[in-house]
């Protein structure tokens, strides 16, 4: 009971800001916001302050929530109204289904909305401690962040099989494509450093020490089934691997089949959160280069790293191949169907029995690459363009963001953005940062309207954070950072 509660708490934590509401990593809008120290999170060469030090609100330094798909939404699968898959007679005869407030699962609409390769992804990150210091040309910062993310990627052919069955593949070879699940929870200690090399070039890096808390990761799970035209056999191959590091144990019977999964006995939530047995490392790299007085180019690579999972590890490996031809009628007379069916069933079970090992494994964390260009229109406003590249399920996903960014009233940072993400063109974003004295709060999102239409959203993200900034301002030693002395700077001070 106690371990069950423990698992619930852990699961709740992992899913705290998870798929319940479709929310993606740091908003692109944040990249060019002015006067926000956390712009270093997306490019370590852009620390956002010119001098002094800052620390963020303890326990709530910043919060990132995000979710996105490859251009399909929750409403493409579940929505109000009449199910399009039902024929007109059925709809007419069942008035209940015509009620507008009832929900329907619309498989046809879903199939029409998804692509060949699909994914749904969510992530959440809560920074509990952060502080930084800039003096002269050098900037230093440290932070402690809890991060989790979950990605599920699948091929359309898998849905086709579930919806239409395998009869359509008689005479052909069916390939499910890879079904990948990757959910990780880890703790991140980050150490940032950036340096103004000269008035044109700033370089930055972040070294991150990671500690994995839990992971479920599948690797190339796929199904191939070949049936000849005469339907005489089904040659089924299932391959793949699932890696788990979590306080669970897989129970097997003497023949090695998994019979149940339960939590580790006497495992407490504190054991989970104090687990430092899965170390990892990651780096962020970036630079910002001023091409001329008004134009700056910047590039960054974020979260290039991996975690080695060593504690509570279970690895399930499946590499089964079964040629199913049915029951052999030449065995005896009369043919004992029951015993033959049981024999076939036993052989299928024995063939598709995953091998369980407990060796350590490693996982990559999702790497992002940013290319930015910033053009200073005047002392207040700059126009910027940003491209973000991610690799999901061996496919490159690129988004583009154009933004206008301003710093006005000696404390108000504003950004308005338009993004093209995953073939969606309705992403109007906003970033606002308010600074009053040392206190600063800021928020940014790439799709301002998604929170109002969550069931229709394809991309949702939100960053909110609170800082206390002291001693910031143009002290004359800020290198190219400092709007008064250096009017082309992305930083307003």
């Amino acid at each position, binding site marked *: 009971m106690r371990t069950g509660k423990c698992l619930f708490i852990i699961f709740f934590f992992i899913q705290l800001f998870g798929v319940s509401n479709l929310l993606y990593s740091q908003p692109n809008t944040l990249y060019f916001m002015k006067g926000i120290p956390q712009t270093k999170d997306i490019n370590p060469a852009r620390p956002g302050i010119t001098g002094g030090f800052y620390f963020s609100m303890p326990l709530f330094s910043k919060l990132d929530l995000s979710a996105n798909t490859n251009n399909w939404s929750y409403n493409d699968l579940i929505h109000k109204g009449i199910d399009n898959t039902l024929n007109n007679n059925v709809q007419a005869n069942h008035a209940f289904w015509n009620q507008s407030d009832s929900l329907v699962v619309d498989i046809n609409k879903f199939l029409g909305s998804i692509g060949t390769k699909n994914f749904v992804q969510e992530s959440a990150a809560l920074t509990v401690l952060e502080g930084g210091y800039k003096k002269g040309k050098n900037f230093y910062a440290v932070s402690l962040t809890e991060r989790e993310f979950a990605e599920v990627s699948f091929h359309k052919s898998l849905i086709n099989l579930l919806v239409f069955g395998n009869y359509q593949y008689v005479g052909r070879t069916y390939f499910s494509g890879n079904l990948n699940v990757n959910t990780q929870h880890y703790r991140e200690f980050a150490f940032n450093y950036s340096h103004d090399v000269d008035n044109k070039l700033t370089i930055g890096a972040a070294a991150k020490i990671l500690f994995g808390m839990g992971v479920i990761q599948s690797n190339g799970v796929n199904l191939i089934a070949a049936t000849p035209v005469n339907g005489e056999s089904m040659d089924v191959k299932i391959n793949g691997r699932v890696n788990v590091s979590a306080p669970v144990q897989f129970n097997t019977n003497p023949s090695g089949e998994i019979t149940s999964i339960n939590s580790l006995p006497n495992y407490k939530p504190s054991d989970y959160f104090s687990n430092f047995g899965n170390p990892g490392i990651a780096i962020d790299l970036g630079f910002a280069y001023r091409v001329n007085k008004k134009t700056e180019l910047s590039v960054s690579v974020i979260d290039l790293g991996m975690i080695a999972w060593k504690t509570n590890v279970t690895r399930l490996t499946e590499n089964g191949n079964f040629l199913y*031809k*049915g029951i*052999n009628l030449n065995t005896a007379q009369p043919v*004992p169907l029951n015993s033959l069916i049981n024999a076939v069933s036993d052989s299928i079970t024995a063939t598709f029995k995953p091998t369980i090992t407990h060796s350590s494994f490693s996982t990559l964390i999702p790497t992002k690459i940013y290319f930015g260009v910033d053009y200073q229109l005047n002392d207040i406003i700059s126009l910027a363009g940003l491209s973000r590249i991610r690799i999901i399920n061996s496919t490159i996903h690129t988004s583009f963001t154009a933004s206008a960014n301003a710093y006005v009233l000696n404390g108000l940072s504003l950004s308005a953005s338009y993004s093209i993400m995953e073939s969606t063109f309705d992403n109007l974003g906003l970033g606002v940062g308010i600074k009053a*004295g040392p206190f600063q709060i800021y928020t940014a999102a790439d799709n301002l309207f998604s929170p109002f239409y969550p069931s229709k959203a394809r991309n949702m993200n939100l960053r909110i954070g609170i800082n206390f900034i002291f001693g910031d301002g143009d002290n004359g030693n800020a290198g190219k950072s400092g709007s008064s002395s250096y009017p082309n700077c992305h930083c307003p001070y």
Partner: protein
Amino acid sequence: MTTINKFNSGVVLFLTAILLISCGLDDFNLKKLANPTDIVPLVYAPLAYGTFKVDDLLVPPPADNDPIPPGGLTLNPVLLDKMGTSFRSSAIDSVYLITHFTNETPADIQFELLFFNRGVPVGNRFPPGKILAGAKDFPVKFNLGTDDQINLQNSTDVSLNFTLLSPSPGAPILYGAVKGKSFTVKIGFYAPVHLFR
């Protein structure tokens, strides 16, 4: 501090506004998922296969120079004992049995599918299929409706009946020409399966 309070109020107001103004939050209330929308995939699987030599299915065999009679030469049926096996599911309204024949004999073969309950025929006879001499992977399809599935469920045996026929009634084939020959039957099925029924 006043600024902090103002901002906190602003955040609370913003979140409240989202909650109040958000459209479609009700769409996440899966308790309203009252529509019994069904998914009905067509599932196919091979069921059985066998290769039968003609003289293995005739005890006692006729003489080699006996012609196949005009009404055909009925072979001993292949019986499938289905005791302890259930073939009925509420998720399935109809099942289509697809048999593929390869007839390596010089005679045509008539194929029938029958259900028996302890020797007594159950249900209607299915229209037989005829496989021409030399046919390869010739398909014969049987549609098992709901009644047929009930009959199958209530039966103890499934009988596969084969009758040899001379292709040309005026020129009967002698038994000796077919006794060493064989034919192959492969039975598969496909059925619309109502996953949520």
